[in-house]
C-alpha cells in the first residue's frame, strides 16, 4: 500500500494544485495532511475548500490554530502585515480548522508484531516543536517511545528528510519530515510531498522494509510570488518562495 503525506501548504494554491495533479497521477491508496493549511499567503479558503472537497484526512498545524479566538473587524482586512493571512479566512473555513485533530495514529498488524505510524505537525509533544534531521537522536527516540511511535511523520520545519534511528533493542525507528507543499525552505523551490510504501513484509527490525519517496513538483512560483507582492502580506515572503528559504 502506498500512502501520500503532505503538509505546510500555507495557502499557496498554485503549489497545491500542481502537487495534487502529480499525486492524482501517482494514485496513492490513502492521503494524509499534516497541517498548516493556512498562513503566509492569500488563498487559505481555496486550499481548505479543496481539502474538504477531497475529504483528505488532516491534522492541525500551529498556523491553523491561529484562528481560535481571532476576531476580524473590517479594518483588519486593510491592515498590512502577517495577520492578514488569517483575517481573510472565512467563518466556515475557520470552523473546520478549529476542529482538526491534533494527532493521528495508524496501527498495523502485518505479521506477528505491531507497527505504529504516528502523524504530528510539529512533534508528538508540541504542535510547534521542530523535529529536524540533526535533532539529538536520544531525544527523538525518547519522544517516540513516549508516543508509542515506530514511524513518525512530521512537517513544520519545511525541510524534508527520512532519518533511520536504531534503538537499544536493535529495532529501527523512522522519522519522516514531509517537507512543505507551499513554502519549502531547503533551497529547492519546488513543492514537496511524500509517497510512503508499506508492504506485507514491513517490520520494525528491518530498516529497508519500508520505502520513502520525496516528490518535488514544479509550479508557477512567479505567480505565487507576484500575488504576495500585490497583497498586504510582508513583501519578503515573495523572495522566500523564489529562493526556498
Amino acid at each position: 500500500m502506498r500512502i501520500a503525506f503532505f503538509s505546510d501548504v500555507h495557502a499557496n494554491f498554485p503549489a497545491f494544485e500542481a502537487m495534487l495533479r502529480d499525486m492524482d497521477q501517482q494514485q496513492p491508496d490513502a492521503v494524509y495532511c499534516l497541517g498548516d493549511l493556512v498562513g503566509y499567503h492569500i488563498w487559505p479558503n481555496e486550499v481548505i475548500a479543496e481539502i474538504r472537497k477531497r475529504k483528505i484526512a488532516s491534522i492541525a498545524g500551529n498556523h491553523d490554530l491561529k484562528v481560535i479566538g481571532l476576531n476580524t473587524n473590517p479594518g483588519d482586512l486593510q491592515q498590512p502585515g502577517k495577520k492578514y493571512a488569517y483575517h481573510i479566512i472565512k467563518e466556515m473555513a475557520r470552523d473546520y480548522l478549529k476542529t482538526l485533530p491534533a494527532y493521528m495514529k495508524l496501527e498495523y498488524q502485518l505479521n506477528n508484531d505491531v507497527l505504529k505510524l504516528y502523524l504530528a505537525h510539529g512533534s508528538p509533544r508540541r504542535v510547534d516543536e521542530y523535529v529536524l534531521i540533526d535533532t539529538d537522536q536520544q531525544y527523538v527516540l525518547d519522544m517516540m517511545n513516549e508516543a508509542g511511535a515506530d514511524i513518525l511523520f512530521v512537517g513544520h520545519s519545511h525541510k524534508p528528510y527520512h532519518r533511520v534511528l536504531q534503538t537499544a533493542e536493535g529495532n529501527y525507528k523512522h522519522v519522516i519530515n514531509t517537507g512543505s507543499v507551499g513554502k519549502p525552505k531547503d533551497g529547492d523551490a519546488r513543492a514537496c510531498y511524500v509517497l510512503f510504501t508499506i508492504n506485507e513484509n514491513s517490520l520494525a527490525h528491518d530498516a529497508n522494509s519500508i520505502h520513502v519517496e520525496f516528490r518535488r513538483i514544479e509550479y508557477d512560483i512567479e505567480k505565487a510570488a507576484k500575488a504576495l507582492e500585490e497583497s498586504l502580506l510582508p513583501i519578503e515572503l515573495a523572495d522566500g518562495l523564489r529562493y526556498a528559504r
Partner: protein
Amino acid sequence: MKIALFSDIHANLPALEAFFKDVETRNADAMYCLGDLVGYNVWPNEVIDEIRKRSIPAIAGNYDFGIGRASDDCGCAYKTDEEKAMGKVSISYTNEIIKDEQRAYLRTLPAHIRLEFQLNNDPLNVLLVHGSPRKVNEYLFEDRDEKSLMRIMEQAEADIMCFGHTHKPYHRILPAAVTKDVHYRHAINIGSVGKPKDDDPRGGYVLLTINENSSIKDKDSIRVELIRFAYDVEKAAKAVEDSPLPNAYADMLRNG
C-alpha cells in the same frame, strides 16, 4: 468537522455506488472505511478499486484479513453447519476471483486508526476499529453489558469508539463517573453499506460531527447520525443468484 464512517460493504458494488452518491450530498470533511470490503458478493475487486481510487483511508476487517492472507478462514462466527458450509463457499469463491493487486491492498491495511482531538485543551480520542479494539472479529452488539463495553473503551483509551462488523447500527452513550465529574463515552456501530442485518435492507453509514465545543463532559456535544440510503437491492441479489454463491445470501440482501 463532519466525518463519514462506513464499513461492511462486502463486495456489494451497487450499494457502494449508492453510498457514494448519498454521502456526496452531506458535505462531509473526511471519510474513513472501517473494513470488510469483500466477501458474500461478486464485486470484491471493483469495491477495492473504488475505495483506492478515492484514496479513502481504510482499516482491515476480518474478511479482508482472511482474503489478504489467502486464508480459508474469515474469522466469522457462523452458528449452524449450514451457515458454515455457505461461509466456506463464499470465502473460497472470493479467494478465487480476487486479483493479486487487490489482495495485496487488503494485506497491508492497518488494523486501527486513532484521531486525537485537543479541543479547548481537553483531549478527545476517536478510535476506529472493525470489530473491537481487542479483536478484529469480536462482535459488539447493542445489548452488550455496559460495564464490559466501558472496560473495552477504557483499555483502548477511546472516548468515541466507532466500529462495524455486526451490521446492526447503534449509538450508545455511556456515562462514567471519574471522582466527582461525570463524563461520557460514545460507542458507535456504523452499520453496513452492503449487507445490513437489522431487517432494513437499505445500506447504512454514520456521520459523526465534532464541533469546537465537543467534549467528554457534554453528551450532546457530539452529533451522531445513523444514515440509511436506498440502492438497487435486486441487482445485488440477482448477482448473487447468478454466481456460485449460495442463493440464501441473495434473500438476506432482500430482507436485510
